[in-house]
């Protein structure tokens, strides 16, 4: 993997230019629009929700969509639209926090492995491989109940299982960057390793990493929904798309609206972020394409 010089710390003009290029790709434009809609709906869930998402109204349970309940009601008569909007808050915060932490840790560990003391390289790589040996969902199931179901557990599991992914890529990029002549020159001039990493290597590798990270957001959103569906994620009275889906699955013989209400936002979110990630990659770093 070669070093890309299209890092995101360029001038404002270049940023605008990039954005325009992104929007000129239909997939990118759709992605941008969907993601903006999602972010807005999550941020303003409190204002947009017609009802309290936890308000129970048993007499009007399991209703089909109507003017008073746009997405119908669940088995407790709660307004599904309100629950879906609040579910979006959870989904986005889980995805963003997990991605940020995974990238942060992955970059630090990858740089240590690639450019730190030699004896640390092998153990770190071995640790990465060990974590990658667990299928994510299976590990989450095994470990989730140990730490108790909840948001923090979900985030923890997602971070731990995706750090090795970033770590390995960073390590490889760092190793190839460190062979560059100018790095050797800087070292010969006596500049510290940490300084070289921070000033010269990191800016060169961070762009592609961020693009890859943007492609992980939909995976994290799906994982949160999946874990909540299995009962090891978000717990009531909090709302989550996975919980709506779980209710929908249970009442699948009574109504199909719940399944639809849980899956439409989930599909929209994963598609939106996937389109955006793909377009970002194609626009800014087509070389990544073969890497997947």
């Amino acid at each position, binding site marked *: 993997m070669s070093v890309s010089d299209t890092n995101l710390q360029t001038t404002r003009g270049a940023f605008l230019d990039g954005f325009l290029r992104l929007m000129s790709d239909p997939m990118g434009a759709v992605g941008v629009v969907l993601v903006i809609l999602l972010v807005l709906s999550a941020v303003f869930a409190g204002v947009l929700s017609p009802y309290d998402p*936890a*308000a*129970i109204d*048993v*007499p009007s*349970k399991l209703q089909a969509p109507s003017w008073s309940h746009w997405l119908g009601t669940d*088995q*407790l008569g709660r307004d599904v639209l309100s629950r879906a909007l609040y579910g979006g808050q959870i989904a986005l915060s889980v995805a963003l926090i997990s991605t940020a932490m995974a990238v942060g840790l992955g970059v630090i560990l990858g740089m240590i492995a690639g450019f730190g003391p030699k004896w640390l390289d092998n153990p770190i790589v071995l640790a990465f491989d060990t974590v990658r040996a667990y299928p994510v969902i299976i590990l989450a199931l095994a470990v989730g109940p140990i730490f108790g179901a909840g948001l923090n557990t979900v985030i923890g599991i997602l971070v731990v299982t995706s750090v090795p992914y970033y770590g390995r890529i960073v390590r490889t990029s760092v190793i190839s960057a460190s062979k560059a002549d100018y790095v050797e020159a800087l070292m010969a001039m006596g500049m510290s390793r940490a300084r070289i990493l921070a000033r010269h290597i990191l800016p060169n590798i961070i762009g592609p990493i961020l693009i890859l990270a943007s492609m992980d957001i939909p995976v994290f959103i799906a994982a949160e929904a999946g874990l909540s569906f299995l*009962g090891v994620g978000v*717990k*009531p*009275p909090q709302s989550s798309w996975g919980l709506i889906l779980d209710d929908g699955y*249970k*009442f*699948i*013989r*009574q109504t199909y609206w719940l399944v639809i209400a849980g899956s439409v936002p989930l599909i929209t979110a994963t598609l939106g972020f996937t389109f955006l990630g793909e377009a970002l990659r194609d626009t800014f770093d087509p070389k990544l394409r073969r890497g997947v």
Partner: protein
Amino acid sequence: MFHSKISKFSNFSQGVTRSIAVASCVWAMSLTGAAAETLRMAVPSDPGYLDPAYWGSTVDQFLIDNLYPRLAKYAPGDEWKIELDAAKSVDLSDPQHIKFELKPGIMWSGGYGELTAEDVKYSYERHLDPEMESGVVTEYAFLEEVEVTGKYTGTIHLSEPSTTFWSSTLVYTGGAIISKAAAEEAGGWFEATPMATTGPYMLGDFEPGNKLVLELNPDWTGDPVDFDKIVLLPIGDENAAELAFAAGEIDYTRTSSGNYDTLVANPPAGSVIELRQTLDPLFLGISQTHESLSDVRVRKAIQLALDLPTIIQATTGGHGKQATGFVAEGLVGHRDGEALIRDVDAARALLAEAGAEGLTVRLDYTNTTARDTAAQIMQANLAEAGITLELNGQDEGTFWSVDEIRAADLQLHLKAWTGNPDGYYTMQYFVEDQIGYWNWEGYASDEYVALLQEARAATDDAARGEIYKTMQGMLEDSGSFVFVMQEPLVSLHRDTIIPGTLPDGRPVFHAFRKAN
């Protein structure tokens, strides 16, 4: 002779007519692959303990009730009545000394010989062995000994007259008789290991989490059965079971009464849907042994904060009725018109008085859709009173197994016990000795124990009923019990079979028949 004696005990249940709404629909349907000789049934979980001393879950009870003989048991049908099982005759004329004679020629499976009075003696007396730590020791507390008077005959001696020992222990799950030879060979106690049983079916293949097969017992010489094989499939959630039924994968299941109306409106092809009133009390237990719940005002606040009519409406679709106690309507000892009424302000005031504002407690319950619905409403109800309720849905097996760590940690628990027509059965468990076993509420009262004794000795139904009413009032006043309802259930079966069940829909395996 026996029948005239026993009629007295079944009298109290005759008034209870089981209203069974039958909605049947006949569609051309094909059973996907299932062989006609195999009966497939959904059960809530795998069995845990098949030793009558340690049974806990619903499935443990199904299997123990069906596989082991008892002197007499409740008969399949729409009314609760007792019929002889392994006994040829029983003399109940002296409530302190019960004489019995066994039917000859009942053989244990696995070559453990014939069922004798020695087996009866061993089966009953083992519960008294302190090393056994039998879970049903309370039921046997007044057993002195079983005197063997012949190969098939014996006398059960009690330390005091007890009419309820027969109706709530010997004919019920705790009265199961096991093979002395087989049990001793296993070291005196056993768990899920298949043991010597009697009856037309015996345990076959067991794939945990997958299925449990009951096969024909080659040593069985009694009445023949219609199905060669019964396959029990563990499906924890009632909606999943319904789905399996609709997909043609099972022939019989019980499901939540909350689904009754939708089922009738949109019945799976070739199904018969029946709404059944069970005797099973659904109640919320509040452990007074837990630090944060030791103040009676806190427990009463929880009682007052709950919106029971809404919970019942949401989980039964209006087919359930709020309970007043452990004894169902129409049975001896039922309390009239004393159901709890919600009062959130009073609940808040009690909490403030007890200095327990901002309380957080945990609710354990079995993780089915109906229970989860009830739990989420309770969570919202308690939130209005300022109490945070953490929900802890567990599978059947985990929920019912109490070890000492869990016993010390129990807080709120929503649960249904299997009901016995005699309220004594349930109420005898709320004594000090049962704390850590079945008395999860930690209720202990000398006055209550004295009333239990009075009830045992009472031969007059009306007098006993009054005692039961007082006892239920005491339990409710302790703040540790919230009676929700006697849970109605729906049973769902193919029109190609005629299920053999107790009045509440609990399966009696040998009584299942093919419809022709």
